[in-house]
Protein backbone atom coordinates (compact mmCIF):
# COMPACT_ATOMS: atom_id res chain seq x y z
CA UNK A 1 0.00 0.00 0.00
CA UNK A 2 2.64 2.48 1.13
CA UNK A 3 4.86 1.25 -1.62
CA UNK A 4 2.30 2.00 -4.31
CA UNK A 5 1.70 5.44 -2.83
CA UNK A 6 5.40 6.17 -2.98
CA UNK A 7 5.52 4.74 -6.46
CA UNK A 8 2.89 7.27 -7.50
CA UNK A 9 5.15 10.02 -6.21
CA UNK A 10 7.94 8.71 -8.38
CA UNK A 11 5.58 8.57 -11.32
CA UNK A 12 5.01 12.32 -11.05
CA UNK A 13 8.40 12.81 -12.63
CA UNK A 14 7.44 10.64 -15.56
CA UNK A 15 4.16 12.48 -15.81
CA UNK A 16 6.03 15.78 -15.87
CA UNK A 17 8.18 14.64 -18.74
CA UNK A 18 5.21 13.32 -20.63
CA UNK A 19 3.46 16.58 -19.85
CA UNK A 20 6.32 18.60 -21.25
CA UNK A 21 6.50 16.50 -24.37
CA UNK A 22 2.76 16.51 -24.94
CA UNK A 23 2.47 20.23 -24.30
CA UNK A 24 5.37 21.04 -26.57
CA UNK A 25 4.02 18.82 -29.30
CA UNK A 26 0.42 19.87 -28.74
CA UNK A 27 0.66 23.20 -30.49
CA UNK A 28 3.65 22.52 -32.65
CA UNK A 29 3.21 19.07 -34.17
CA UNK A 30 -0.39 18.09 -33.59
CA UNK A 31 -3.29 20.02 -32.21
CA UNK A 32 -5.07 18.80 -29.13
CA UNK A 33 -7.86 21.27 -29.37
CA UNK A 34 -8.71 21.50 -33.02
CA UNK A 35 -7.21 23.97 -35.43
CA UNK A 36 -3.90 23.64 -37.11
CA UNK A 37 -0.64 22.95 -35.35
CA UNK A 38 2.44 25.04 -36.00
CA UNK A 39 4.19 22.55 -38.22
CA UNK A 40 1.01 21.98 -40.17
CA UNK A 41 1.13 25.60 -41.21
CA UNK A 42 4.85 26.07 -41.38
CA UNK A 43 6.89 23.30 -42.87
CA UNK A 44 9.78 22.06 -40.74
CA UNK A 45 11.80 22.80 -43.82
CA UNK A 46 11.09 26.49 -43.51
CA UNK A 47 11.41 26.40 -39.75
CA UNK A 48 14.88 24.91 -39.76
CA UNK A 49 15.99 26.22 -43.14
CA UNK A 50 14.86 29.79 -43.50
CA UNK A 51 17.11 32.50 -42.17
CA UNK A 52 14.46 35.04 -41.28
CA UNK A 53 12.43 35.17 -38.11
CA UNK A 54 9.56 37.68 -38.05
CA UNK A 55 6.48 35.98 -36.63
CA UNK A 56 4.93 39.23 -35.46
CA UNK A 57 4.96 41.17 -38.72
CA UNK A 58 2.61 41.46 -41.63
CA UNK A 59 5.26 39.65 -43.62
CA UNK A 60 5.73 36.60 -41.40
CA UNK A 61 8.75 34.36 -41.58
CA UNK A 62 9.49 31.43 -39.36
CA UNK A 63 13.11 30.51 -39.74
CA UNK A 64 14.43 29.57 -36.33
CA UNK A 65 18.08 29.84 -37.38
CA UNK A 66 18.54 33.45 -36.20
CA UNK A 67 17.25 32.48 -32.74
CA UNK A 68 19.42 29.39 -32.74
CA UNK A 69 22.38 31.49 -33.80
CA UNK A 70 21.73 33.98 -31.00
CA UNK A 71 21.40 31.18 -28.48
CA UNK A 72 24.60 29.52 -29.60
CA UNK A 73 26.45 32.83 -29.57
CA UNK A 74 25.43 33.61 -26.00
CA UNK A 75 25.98 30.06 -24.77
CA UNK A 76 29.34 29.99 -26.54
CA UNK A 77 30.52 33.19 -24.90
CA UNK A 78 29.25 31.94 -21.56
CA UNK A 79 31.08 28.65 -22.04
CA UNK A 80 34.34 30.32 -22.99
CA UNK A 81 34.27 32.47 -19.88
CA UNK A 82 32.44 30.36 -17.34
CA UNK A 83 33.85 26.89 -17.90
CA UNK A 84 37.57 27.58 -17.45
CA UNK A 85 37.04 29.91 -14.53
CA UNK A 86 34.70 27.45 -12.88
CA UNK A 87 37.08 24.57 -13.38
CA UNK A 88 40.13 26.43 -12.16
CA UNK A 89 38.20 27.61 -9.14
CA UNK A 90 37.17 24.01 -8.50
CA UNK A 91 40.78 22.88 -8.70
CA UNK A 92 41.78 25.58 -6.28
CA UNK A 93 39.07 24.72 -3.81
CA UNK A 94 39.64 21.00 -3.96
CA UNK A 95 43.42 20.85 -4.19
CA UNK A 96 44.91 24.03 -2.80
CA UNK A 97 42.51 25.85 -0.54
CA UNK A 98 42.66 25.38 3.18
CA UNK A 99 39.49 23.72 4.47
CA UNK A 100 38.58 26.98 6.12
CA UNK A 101 38.72 28.88 2.84
CA UNK A 102 36.71 26.20 1.14
CA UNK A 103 34.07 26.29 3.82
CA UNK A 104 33.77 30.05 3.37
CA UNK A 105 33.98 30.29 -0.39
CA UNK A 106 31.71 27.45 -1.39
CA UNK A 107 28.56 28.79 0.25
CA UNK A 108 29.49 32.22 -1.03
CA UNK A 109 29.54 30.88 -4.56
CA UNK A 110 26.30 29.07 -3.91
CA UNK A 111 24.79 32.45 -3.17
CA UNK A 112 26.18 33.63 -6.48
CA UNK A 113 24.08 30.87 -7.99
CA UNK A 114 21.04 31.96 -6.00
CA UNK A 115 20.89 35.56 -7.17
CA UNK A 116 17.87 35.97 -9.42
CA UNK A 117 18.98 36.09 -13.01
CA UNK A 118 17.10 39.34 -13.47
CA UNK A 119 19.81 40.96 -11.37
CA UNK A 120 22.52 39.63 -13.63
CA UNK A 121 20.68 40.93 -16.65
CA UNK A 122 20.74 44.45 -15.32
CA UNK A 123 24.31 44.06 -14.24
CA UNK A 124 25.11 43.35 -17.87
CA UNK A 125 22.99 46.15 -19.26
CA UNK A 126 23.87 48.86 -16.75
CA UNK A 127 27.42 47.94 -15.88
CA UNK A 128 29.17 45.62 -18.30
CA UNK A 129 28.05 47.22 -21.55
CA UNK A 130 28.59 50.88 -20.64
CA UNK A 131 31.58 50.56 -18.32
CA UNK A 132 33.44 47.54 -19.64
CA UNK A 133 32.56 46.82 -23.25
CA UNK A 134 32.02 50.33 -24.59
CA UNK A 135 35.26 51.81 -23.28
CA UNK A 136 37.24 48.82 -24.49
CA UNK A 137 35.72 47.84 -27.82
CA UNK A 138 34.35 51.20 -28.90
CA UNK A 139 36.74 53.54 -27.14
CA UNK A 140 39.96 51.66 -27.69
CA UNK A 141 39.37 49.39 -30.67
CA UNK A 142 36.78 51.40 -32.54
CA UNK A 143 34.16 48.67 -32.90
CA UNK A 144 30.54 49.59 -32.74
CA UNK A 145 28.89 48.26 -29.57
CA UNK A 146 25.12 47.94 -29.50
CA UNK A 147 23.35 48.90 -26.30
CA UNK A 148 21.91 45.41 -26.17
CA UNK A 149 24.53 42.93 -27.22
CA UNK A 150 25.34 39.26 -27.09
CA UNK A 151 28.68 39.74 -25.39
CA UNK A 152 27.44 41.36 -22.21
CA UNK A 153 24.68 38.79 -21.89
CA UNK A 154 27.11 35.96 -22.63
CA UNK A 155 29.53 37.25 -20.00
CA UNK A 156 26.95 37.38 -17.23
CA UNK A 157 25.59 33.99 -18.17
CA UNK A 158 29.19 32.84 -17.98
CA UNK A 159 29.43 34.29 -14.49
CA UNK A 160 26.18 32.61 -13.59
CA UNK A 161 27.40 29.16 -14.55
CA UNK A 162 30.66 29.49 -12.63
CA UNK A 163 29.17 28.24 -9.34
CA UNK A 164 27.57 25.29 -11.08
CA UNK A 165 30.74 24.24 -12.88
CA UNK A 166 32.79 24.89 -9.79
CA UNK A 167 30.59 22.92 -7.48
CA UNK A 168 30.08 19.91 -9.78
CA UNK A 169 33.72 19.81 -10.86
CA UNK A 170 34.84 20.07 -7.29
CA UNK A 171 32.69 17.09 -6.44
CA UNK A 172 34.31 15.20 -9.29
CA UNK A 173 37.79 16.21 -8.16
CA UNK A 174 37.10 15.28 -4.59
CA UNK A 175 35.71 11.95 -5.69
CA UNK A 176 39.19 11.10 -6.92
CA UNK A 177 40.35 8.86 -4.11
CA UNK A 178 42.94 10.24 -1.77
CA UNK A 179 44.94 7.12 -2.40
CA UNK A 180 45.54 8.17 -6.01
CA UNK A 181 46.98 11.47 -4.87
CA UNK A 182 49.14 9.71 -2.34
CA UNK A 183 50.31 7.32 -5.00
CA UNK A 184 51.26 10.33 -7.08
CA UNK A 185 53.18 11.97 -4.28
CA UNK A 186 54.86 8.70 -3.38
CA UNK A 187 56.27 8.60 -6.89
CA UNK A 188 57.94 11.93 -6.36
CA UNK A 189 55.44 14.33 -7.94
CA UNK A 190 55.02 17.95 -7.07
CA UNK A 191 51.56 19.24 -6.25
CA UNK A 192 51.25 20.59 -9.75
CA UNK A 193 52.10 17.19 -11.22
CA UNK A 194 49.56 15.49 -9.02
CA UNK A 195 46.88 18.03 -9.98
CA UNK A 196 47.48 18.10 -13.67
CA UNK A 197 48.58 14.54 -14.31
CA UNK A 198 46.61 12.53 -11.78
CA UNK A 199 43.64 14.31 -10.29
CA UNK A 200 42.27 16.27 -13.22
CA UNK A 201 42.62 13.43 -15.74
CA UNK A 202 40.98 11.06 -13.29
CA UNK A 203 38.09 13.48 -12.89
CA UNK A 204 37.79 14.33 -16.57
CA UNK A 205 34.48 12.62 -17.08
CA UNK A 206 32.95 14.36 -14.11
CA UNK A 207 34.30 17.70 -15.22
CA UNK A 208 33.01 17.24 -18.73
CA UNK A 209 29.64 16.25 -17.39
CA UNK A 210 29.57 19.44 -15.37
CA UNK A 211 30.51 21.38 -18.50
CA UNK A 212 27.67 19.86 -20.46
CA UNK A 213 25.19 20.61 -17.71
CA UNK A 214 26.44 24.16 -17.47
CA UNK A 215 26.17 24.70 -21.21
CA UNK A 216 22.70 23.30 -21.13
CA UNK A 217 21.92 25.78 -18.39
CA UNK A 218 23.41 28.59 -20.46
CA UNK A 219 21.26 27.62 -23.41
CA UNK A 220 18.16 27.64 -21.28
CA UNK A 221 18.99 30.84 -19.42
CA UNK A 222 16.28 33.40 -19.89
CA UNK A 223 15.95 36.59 -17.93
CA UNK A 224 19.52 37.83 -18.19
CA UNK A 225 19.37 37.38 -21.94
CA UNK A 226 15.97 39.00 -22.24
CA UNK A 227 17.27 42.06 -20.50
CA UNK A 228 20.73 42.39 -21.94
CA UNK A 229 20.97 40.72 -25.33
CA UNK A 230 18.25 42.54 -27.24
CA UNK A 231 15.35 41.44 -29.36
CA UNK A 232 16.62 41.39 -32.91
CA UNK A 233 16.60 38.00 -34.52
CA UNK A 234 19.54 38.22 -36.89
CA UNK A 235 22.17 35.76 -37.92
CA UNK A 236 25.46 37.17 -36.82
CA UNK A 237 28.58 35.99 -35.09
CA UNK A 238 29.49 39.50 -34.03
CA UNK A 239 29.12 39.42 -30.25
CA UNK A 240 28.84 43.20 -30.08
CA UNK A 241 25.55 43.14 -32.00
CA UNK A 242 22.14 42.83 -30.58
CA UNK A 243 20.62 39.39 -31.09
CA UNK A 244 17.64 37.39 -29.92
CA UNK A 245 17.81 33.99 -28.29
CA UNK A 246 15.13 31.36 -28.24
CA UNK A 247 14.35 32.02 -24.61
CA UNK A 248 14.23 35.77 -25.15
CA UNK A 249 11.76 35.32 -27.94
CA UNK A 250 9.57 33.15 -25.75
CA UNK A 251 9.52 35.73 -23.00
CA UNK A 252 8.92 38.52 -25.47
CA UNK A 253 5.87 36.70 -26.76
CA UNK A 254 4.55 35.96 -23.32
CA UNK A 255 5.22 39.45 -21.94
CA UNK A 256 2.70 40.57 -24.51
CA UNK A 257 0.64 37.59 -23.33
CA UNK A 258 -0.15 36.61 -26.85
CA UNK A 259 -3.65 35.12 -27.05
CA UNK A 260 -4.01 31.43 -27.66
CA UNK A 261 -4.61 30.23 -31.15
CA UNK A 262 -2.55 32.70 -33.15
CA UNK A 263 0.38 31.47 -35.15
CA UNK A 264 2.78 33.54 -33.03
CA UNK A 265 1.43 31.78 -30.00
CA UNK A 266 2.04 28.41 -31.61
CA UNK A 267 5.53 29.42 -32.61
CA UNK A 268 6.20 29.69 -28.88
CA UNK A 269 5.70 25.95 -28.67
CA UNK A 270 7.79 25.21 -31.72
CA UNK A 271 10.67 27.22 -30.31
CA UNK A 272 10.13 25.68 -26.88
CA UNK A 273 10.24 22.23 -28.41
CA UNK A 274 13.50 23.03 -30.16
CA UNK A 275 14.99 24.36 -26.94
CA UNK A 276 13.80 21.32 -25.02
CA UNK A 277 15.33 18.95 -27.54
CA UNK A 278 18.67 20.73 -27.50
CA UNK A 279 18.94 20.76 -23.73
CA UNK A 280 17.71 17.19 -23.55
CA UNK A 281 20.50 16.19 -25.87
CA UNK A 282 23.04 17.99 -23.71
CA UNK A 283 21.68 16.36 -20.58
CA UNK A 284 21.72 12.91 -22.06
CA UNK A 285 25.29 13.45 -23.19
CA UNK A 286 26.24 14.60 -19.73
CA UNK A 287 24.49 11.61 -18.16
CA UNK A 288 26.43 9.36 -20.38
CA UNK A 289 29.66 10.98 -19.28
CA UNK A 290 28.67 10.82 -15.64
CA UNK A 291 28.02 7.15 -16.08
CA UNK A 292 31.50 6.57 -17.44
CA UNK A 293 32.86 8.62 -14.60
CA UNK A 294 31.23 6.34 -12.04
CA UNK A 295 32.77 3.29 -13.65
CA UNK A 296 36.30 4.53 -13.29
CA UNK A 297 36.88 3.65 -9.69
CA UNK A 298 34.67 0.67 -9.25
Amino acid at each position, binding site marked *: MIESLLFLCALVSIATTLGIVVVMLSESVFSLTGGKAFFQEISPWEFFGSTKWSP*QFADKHFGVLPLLCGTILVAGIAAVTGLPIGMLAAIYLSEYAAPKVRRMVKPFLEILAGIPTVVYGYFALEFITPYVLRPFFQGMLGFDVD*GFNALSAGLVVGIMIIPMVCSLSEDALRAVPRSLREAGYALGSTKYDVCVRVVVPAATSGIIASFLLAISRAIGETMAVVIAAGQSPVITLNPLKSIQTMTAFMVNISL*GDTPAGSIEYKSLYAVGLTLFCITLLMNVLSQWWMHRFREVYQ
Partner: protein
Amino acid sequence: EPQGKSTSESGSTTGGSGTAAAPVKGFVPEGAIAPSPETIKSGTYKPLSRPLFLYVNKAVLKKPEAIAFLEYYFSPEGRALVGESGYVELDDADYDAQVKLLDDAIKAAGGKASETLNGQVLVDGSSTVAPITTAVAEEFSKLHANVRVPVGTSGTGGGFKKFCSGEIDICDASRGIKDSEKELCQKAGIEYLEMKVGIDGLTIVVNPKADWIAGITVEELKKIWNPESKVQKWSDINPAYPNAAIKLFGPDTDSGTFEYFTEEICGKKGASRSDYQQSGDDNFLVTGVAGDEHALGYFGFAYYIENQGKLKALSVAP
Protein backbone atom coordinates in the same frame (compact mmCIF):
# COMPACT_ATOMS: atom_id res chain seq x y z
CA GLU B 1 24.65 58.29 -6.98
CA PRO B 2 21.78 56.78 -5.05
CA GLN B 3 19.07 59.17 -4.23
CA GLY B 4 17.29 58.93 -0.92
CA LYS B 5 13.54 58.83 -1.03
CA SER B 6 13.11 61.91 1.08
CA THR B 7 15.00 64.09 -1.32
CA SER B 8 12.76 63.21 -4.23
CA GLU B 9 9.44 63.15 -2.48
CA SER B 10 7.90 65.36 -5.11
CA GLY B 11 9.66 63.41 -7.81
CA SER B 12 6.89 62.37 -10.17
CA THR B 13 6.96 64.21 -13.43
CA THR B 14 3.71 65.67 -14.54
CA GLY B 15 2.57 65.94 -18.10
CA GLY B 16 2.15 69.66 -17.90
CA SER B 17 5.82 70.39 -17.53
CA GLY B 18 6.03 69.13 -21.11
CA THR B 19 8.91 69.73 -23.43
CA ALA B 20 10.56 72.61 -21.76
CA ALA B 21 13.92 71.09 -22.60
CA ALA B 22 16.98 73.09 -23.49
CA PRO B 23 17.17 74.29 -27.10
CA VAL B 24 18.11 71.31 -29.20
CA LYS B 25 21.04 71.10 -31.51
CA GLY B 26 20.75 69.54 -34.90
CA PHE B 27 19.01 69.80 -38.23
CA VAL B 28 15.32 70.70 -38.22
CA PRO B 29 13.28 70.50 -41.44
CA GLU B 30 10.99 73.34 -42.28
CA GLY B 31 7.56 73.33 -40.68
CA ALA B 32 8.49 70.76 -38.11
CA ILE B 33 6.45 70.81 -34.93
CA ALA B 34 7.82 69.55 -31.62
CA PRO B 35 5.55 67.25 -29.63
CA SER B 36 4.14 68.94 -26.52
CA PRO B 37 0.85 68.81 -24.69
CA GLU B 38 -0.24 71.97 -26.46
CA THR B 39 0.63 70.89 -29.96
CA ILE B 40 -0.89 67.51 -29.41
CA LYS B 41 -4.08 68.83 -27.93
CA SER B 42 -4.47 71.42 -30.64
CA GLY B 43 -3.74 68.85 -33.30
CA THR B 44 -0.87 70.84 -34.81
CA TYR B 45 1.47 67.97 -34.07
CA LYS B 46 0.57 66.08 -37.19
CA PRO B 47 0.11 63.42 -38.27
CA LEU B 48 1.07 61.53 -35.17
CA SER B 49 -1.42 62.59 -32.51
CA ARG B 50 -4.20 60.16 -31.82
CA PRO B 51 -6.97 59.51 -29.33
CA LEU B 52 -6.77 56.79 -26.68
CA PHE B 53 -9.72 54.58 -25.88
CA LEU B 54 -11.26 52.36 -23.28
CA TYR B 55 -13.53 49.55 -24.49
CA VAL B 56 -15.95 48.32 -21.89
CA ASN B 57 -17.88 45.07 -22.06
CA LYS B 58 -21.45 46.18 -21.46
CA ALA B 59 -22.14 43.02 -19.51
CA VAL B 60 -19.85 44.16 -16.73
CA LEU B 61 -21.80 47.35 -16.25
CA LYS B 62 -24.04 45.25 -14.04
CA LYS B 63 -21.23 44.69 -11.59
CA PRO B 64 -21.07 47.42 -8.94
CA GLU B 65 -17.29 47.23 -8.66
CA ALA B 66 -16.89 47.82 -12.40
CA ILE B 67 -19.31 50.73 -12.30
CA ALA B 68 -17.45 52.27 -9.41
CA PHE B 69 -14.16 51.87 -11.21
CA LEU B 70 -15.39 53.43 -14.43
CA GLU B 71 -17.10 56.26 -12.61
CA TYR B 72 -13.85 57.00 -10.87
CA TYR B 73 -11.98 56.80 -14.17
CA PHE B 74 -14.19 59.51 -15.61
CA SER B 75 -14.39 61.61 -12.47
CA PRO B 76 -12.35 64.84 -12.31
CA GLU B 77 -9.71 62.99 -10.27
CA GLY B 78 -9.44 60.36 -12.96
CA ARG B 79 -9.25 63.02 -15.64
CA ALA B 80 -6.37 64.68 -13.83
CA LEU B 81 -4.50 61.37 -13.79
CA VAL B 82 -4.49 61.40 -17.59
CA GLY B 83 -2.40 64.52 -17.58
CA GLU B 84 -0.30 63.27 -14.74
CA SER B 85 0.51 60.15 -16.69
CA GLY B 86 2.04 62.19 -19.47
CA TYR B 87 -0.87 62.41 -21.89
CA VAL B 88 -3.15 65.18 -22.92
CA GLU B 89 -6.51 65.49 -21.23
CA LEU B 90 -9.68 65.70 -23.28
CA ASP B 91 -11.12 69.13 -23.70
CA ASP B 92 -14.17 69.89 -21.60
CA ALA B 93 -16.80 69.19 -24.24
CA ASP B 94 -15.33 65.89 -25.11
CA TYR B 95 -14.96 64.98 -21.48
CA ASP B 96 -18.60 65.81 -20.67
CA ALA B 97 -19.72 63.70 -23.60
CA GLN B 98 -17.80 60.72 -22.25
CA VAL B 99 -19.31 61.08 -18.79
CA LYS B 100 -22.77 61.19 -20.24
CA LEU B 101 -22.08 58.16 -22.41
CA LEU B 102 -21.06 56.21 -19.37
CA ASP B 103 -24.02 57.27 -17.26
CA ASP B 104 -26.44 56.30 -20.00
CA ALA B 105 -24.87 52.92 -20.48
CA ILE B 106 -24.94 52.19 -16.77
CA LYS B 107 -28.56 53.14 -16.59
CA ALA B 108 -29.35 51.00 -19.59
CA ALA B 109 -27.60 48.05 -18.07
CA GLY B 110 -29.56 48.52 -14.90
CA GLY B 111 -26.57 48.20 -12.65
CA LYS B 112 -26.36 50.22 -9.53
CA ALA B 113 -23.62 51.27 -7.23
CA SER B 114 -23.35 49.46 -3.96
CA GLU B 115 -21.92 50.25 -0.58
CA THR B 116 -19.72 47.20 -0.05
CA LEU B 117 -17.61 46.54 -3.05
CA ASN B 118 -15.47 43.53 -3.76
CA GLY B 119 -14.43 41.40 -6.66
CA GLN B 120 -12.24 42.02 -9.65
CA VAL B 121 -12.25 44.19 -12.73
CA LEU B 122 -9.99 42.69 -15.35
CA VAL B 123 -8.24 45.18 -17.59
CA ASP B 124 -5.80 44.44 -20.36
CA GLY B 125 -4.63 45.91 -23.62
CA SER B 126 -2.61 48.87 -24.79
CA SER B 127 0.67 49.54 -23.12
CA THR B 128 0.22 53.16 -24.17
CA VAL B 129 -2.94 53.52 -22.14
CA ALA B 130 -1.70 51.31 -19.31
CA PRO B 131 0.02 54.10 -17.34
CA ILE B 132 -3.31 55.93 -17.07
CA THR B 133 -5.24 52.84 -16.13
CA THR B 134 -2.72 51.68 -13.53
CA ALA B 135 -2.68 55.16 -12.04
CA VAL B 136 -6.46 55.13 -11.85
CA ALA B 137 -6.48 51.60 -10.49
CA GLU B 138 -3.93 52.50 -7.87
CA GLU B 139 -5.89 55.50 -6.64
CA PHE B 140 -9.15 53.61 -6.88
CA SER B 141 -7.85 50.78 -4.75
CA LYS B 142 -7.10 53.22 -1.99
CA LEU B 143 -10.80 54.02 -1.83
CA HIS B 144 -12.01 50.46 -2.25
CA ALA B 145 -9.48 48.11 -0.79
CA ASN B 146 -11.50 45.02 -1.61
CA VAL B 147 -11.76 45.61 -5.32
CA ARG B 148 -8.98 44.30 -7.54
CA VAL B 149 -8.04 45.86 -10.79
CA PRO B 150 -5.08 43.92 -12.17
CA VAL B 151 -3.91 45.74 -15.28
CA GLY B 152 -2.30 43.70 -18.02
CA THR B 153 -0.36 45.15 -20.94
CA SER B 154 -0.80 42.84 -23.88
CA GLY B 155 -0.94 45.57 -26.47
CA THR B 156 -4.07 46.83 -28.14
CA GLY B 157 -4.36 43.87 -30.48
CA GLY B 158 -3.71 41.36 -27.76
CA GLY B 159 -6.18 43.13 -25.54
CA PHE B 160 -8.91 43.02 -28.14
CA LYS B 161 -8.37 39.34 -28.72
CA LYS B 162 -8.99 38.71 -25.04
CA PHE B 163 -11.76 41.26 -24.90
CA CYS B 164 -13.62 39.68 -27.75
CA SER B 165 -13.38 36.26 -26.18
CA GLY B 166 -14.73 37.58 -22.89
CA GLU B 167 -11.53 36.99 -20.94
CA ILE B 168 -11.39 40.57 -19.71
CA ASP B 169 -13.83 43.28 -18.74
CA ILE B 170 -12.16 46.39 -20.07
CA CYS B 171 -9.75 46.81 -22.92
CA ASP B 172 -7.24 49.65 -23.12
CA ALA B 173 -6.76 50.66 -26.74
CA SER B 174 -4.55 53.14 -28.51
CA ARG B 175 -6.63 52.92 -31.70
CA GLY B 176 -10.23 52.28 -32.64
CA ILE B 177 -11.57 48.76 -32.84
CA LYS B 178 -11.07 47.09 -36.21
CA ASP B 179 -13.80 45.49 -38.28
CA SER B 180 -12.33 42.07 -37.81
CA GLU B 181 -12.36 42.58 -34.06
CA LYS B 182 -15.92 43.86 -34.16
CA GLU B 183 -16.90 40.65 -35.89
CA LEU B 184 -15.19 38.55 -33.24
CA CYS B 185 -17.05 40.42 -30.52
CA GLN B 186 -20.31 39.93 -32.32
CA LYS B 187 -19.71 36.22 -32.67
CA ALA B 188 -19.02 35.90 -29.00
CA GLY B 189 -22.04 37.99 -28.23
CA ILE B 190 -20.11 40.76 -26.60
CA GLU B 191 -21.50 44.26 -26.69
CA TYR B 192 -19.16 47.05 -25.89
CA LEU B 193 -18.94 50.69 -25.09
CA GLU B 194 -16.21 52.82 -26.68
CA MET B 195 -14.87 55.62 -24.50
CA LYS B 196 -12.19 58.19 -25.20
CA VAL B 197 -9.82 58.85 -22.33
CA GLY B 198 -7.18 61.17 -23.69
CA ILE B 199 -4.88 62.07 -26.54
CA ASP B 200 -1.43 60.81 -27.26
CA GLY B 201 1.27 62.11 -29.52
CA LEU B 202 3.43 59.42 -31.06
CA THR B 203 6.94 60.58 -30.41
CA ILE B 204 9.98 59.98 -32.57
CA VAL B 205 13.01 59.82 -30.34
CA VAL B 206 16.75 59.65 -30.75
CA ASN B 207 19.63 59.52 -28.34
CA PRO B 208 20.52 62.92 -26.80
CA LYS B 209 24.02 62.49 -28.15
CA ALA B 210 22.65 62.53 -31.71
CA ASP B 211 23.48 66.22 -32.19
CA TRP B 212 23.08 66.09 -35.95
CA ILE B 213 19.32 65.85 -35.93
CA ALA B 214 16.46 67.59 -34.16
CA GLY B 215 13.62 67.17 -36.60
CA ILE B 216 12.41 64.83 -39.29
CA THR B 217 9.87 64.80 -42.11
CA VAL B 218 7.13 62.28 -42.67
CA GLU B 219 8.77 61.52 -46.00
CA GLU B 220 12.02 60.60 -44.27
CA LEU B 221 10.18 58.47 -41.74
CA LYS B 222 8.53 56.58 -44.55
CA LYS B 223 11.89 56.08 -46.20
CA ILE B 224 13.21 54.59 -42.99
CA TRP B 225 10.30 52.43 -41.94
CA ASN B 226 8.64 51.12 -45.13
CA PRO B 227 8.87 47.37 -45.72
CA GLU B 228 11.30 47.73 -48.63
CA SER B 229 13.46 50.22 -46.80
CA LYS B 230 17.10 50.32 -47.84
CA VAL B 231 18.10 52.63 -45.03
CA GLN B 232 20.88 51.06 -43.00
CA LYS B 233 22.89 54.11 -42.04
CA TRP B 234 22.10 57.56 -40.96
CA SER B 235 23.74 58.87 -44.09
CA ASP B 236 21.19 56.96 -46.16
CA ILE B 237 18.60 59.43 -44.91
CA ASN B 238 20.62 62.54 -45.39
CA PRO B 239 24.23 62.58 -46.58
CA ALA B 240 24.92 65.21 -43.97
CA TYR B 241 24.22 62.72 -41.21
CA PRO B 242 26.97 60.47 -39.91
CA ASN B 243 28.02 57.42 -41.81
CA ALA B 244 26.99 55.13 -38.96
CA ALA B 245 24.52 52.27 -38.76
CA ILE B 246 21.09 53.36 -37.65
CA LYS B 247 19.62 51.31 -34.82
CA LEU B 248 15.86 51.16 -34.97
CA PHE B 249 13.53 50.53 -32.06
CA GLY B 250 9.79 50.19 -32.23
CA PRO B 251 6.77 48.54 -30.69
CA ASP B 252 5.80 45.03 -31.67
CA THR B 253 2.97 44.18 -33.98
CA ASP B 254 0.40 43.55 -31.29
CA SER B 255 0.48 47.19 -30.34
CA GLY B 256 -1.88 49.91 -31.44
CA THR B 257 1.08 52.23 -31.68
CA PHE B 258 2.57 50.05 -34.39
CA GLU B 259 -0.63 49.94 -36.38
CA TYR B 260 -1.27 53.62 -36.07
CA PHE B 261 2.27 54.51 -37.02
CA THR B 262 2.45 52.20 -40.01
CA GLU B 263 -0.89 53.39 -41.29
CA GLU B 264 -0.03 57.07 -40.95
CA ILE B 265 3.53 56.88 -42.18
CA CYS B 266 3.72 53.93 -44.56
CA GLY B 267 0.12 54.14 -45.68
CA LYS B 268 -0.92 50.65 -44.72
CA LYS B 269 -1.54 48.95 -41.39
CA GLY B 270 1.27 46.57 -40.47
CA ALA B 271 3.43 47.62 -43.39
CA SER B 272 6.81 48.00 -41.80
CA ARG B 273 10.33 46.79 -42.14
CA SER B 274 10.93 44.00 -39.67
CA ASP B 275 14.64 44.18 -38.97
CA TYR B 276 14.43 46.38 -35.94
CA GLN B 277 14.39 45.86 -32.19
CA GLN B 278 10.78 45.32 -31.40
CA SER B 279 9.09 44.99 -28.09
CA GLY B 280 5.66 45.40 -26.62
CA ASP B 281 7.39 46.83 -23.61
CA ASP B 282 7.98 50.55 -24.15
CA ASN B 283 10.50 50.66 -21.35
CA PHE B 284 12.64 48.28 -23.32
CA LEU B 285 12.52 50.74 -26.22
CA VAL B 286 13.41 53.63 -23.94
CA THR B 287 16.39 51.76 -22.58
CA GLY B 288 17.39 50.78 -26.07
CA VAL B 289 17.37 54.30 -27.50
CA ALA B 290 18.88 55.78 -24.38
CA GLY B 291 21.71 53.29 -24.57
CA ASP B 292 22.74 53.81 -28.17
CA GLU B 293 24.05 56.95 -29.79
CA HIS B 294 22.78 55.96 -33.23
CA ALA B 295 19.36 54.78 -32.23
CA LEU B 296 15.99 55.99 -33.46
CA GLY B 297 12.66 54.81 -32.17
CA TYR B 298 9.03 55.69 -31.70
CA PHE B 299 6.47 55.21 -28.94
CA GLY B 300 3.83 56.99 -26.90
CA PHE B 301 4.41 60.52 -25.63
CA ALA B 302 4.14 59.51 -21.99
CA TYR B 303 7.21 57.34 -22.15
CA TYR B 304 9.13 60.21 -23.61
CA ILE B 305 7.97 62.61 -20.90
CA GLU B 306 9.10 60.17 -18.23
CA ASN B 307 12.55 59.99 -19.74
CA GLN B 308 13.30 63.42 -21.09
CA GLY B 309 16.81 63.31 -19.70
CA LYS B 310 17.70 60.18 -21.60
CA LEU B 311 15.95 60.86 -24.89
CA LYS B 312 15.59 63.59 -27.47
CA ALA B 313 12.23 64.00 -29.22
CA LEU B 314 12.35 64.98 -32.89
CA SER B 315 10.03 67.63 -34.31
CA VAL B 316 7.98 66.26 -37.13
CA ALA B 317 7.22 68.05 -40.36
CA PRO B 318 4.09 66.78 -42.13
